[in-house]
């Protein structure tokens, strides 16, 4: 059951990041369009709910990153038995949480906290 949740989470975090790519494109297009457009876009990115989406994107990246490594190991024929899959799944969650929190701490100034 728990490995099934991890499996569907890989797809959900992937689709979420695909939506995030639209934000990335919008950010770059705004920057290329000129200072007024970039100011306007920066206003959007400063909104609390957009910041929350960006934090979600970060978490989705790290989850998808570690779960993806697990998939590549499976492709190589490693860790396919039930016990290994359960253990590696737990590692994916732990590492994703640690990496997300680490990046958030490093990004506090960028997110406008304490500045």
């Amino acid at each position: 059951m728990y490995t099934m949740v991890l499996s569907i989470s890989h797809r959900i975090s992937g689709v979420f990041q695909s939506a995030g790519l639209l934000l990335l494109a919008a950010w770059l297009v705004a920057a290329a369009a000129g200072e007024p457009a970039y100011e306007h876009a920066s206003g959007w990115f400063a909104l609390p709910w957009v910041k929350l989406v960006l934090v979600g994107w970060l978490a989705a990246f790290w989850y998808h990153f570690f779960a993806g490594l697990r998939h590549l190991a499976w492709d190589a024929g490693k860790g396919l038995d039930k016990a290994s899959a359960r253990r590696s799944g737990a590692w994916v969650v732990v590492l994703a949480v640690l990496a997300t929190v680490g990046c958030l701490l490093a990004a506090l100034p960028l997110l406008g906290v304490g500045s």
Partner: protein
Amino acid sequence: MSLRPALGTVLGSGSARAGVEHWWSQRVSAVASALLGLWFIYTLLTLPSLDRVALIAWLADPVSATLMLLFLLATFWHSALGVQVVIEDYVHHKALRVLGLLAARYLHLLAGGAAAVSVLKLSFGEPA
């Protein structure tokens, strides 16, 4: 037992031979996206600021601009392949599935293309 001819049951499902190519492309783009994704997050966290002037100074460096273009190529490619699989797996209505696959592919090309042109413009454009 269905009396539909074999061709009628497989139309719209893609070529039987396309699977291996898709599988391999997904892995190639996955490894590239992972490495360049790490680079992109590290870059965002270490840029002196996220204002437009800092962005232009960053992309004026050809190494940064090249890596950024490769990051866009890898992630939009990987995303297009992944979204394709999700649509194929969950959209069972044949016409909707084909429309969804077309829309997703074109949207990836449009957004990825616009992002890449923007990077080039920022990289080659006159200083802010």
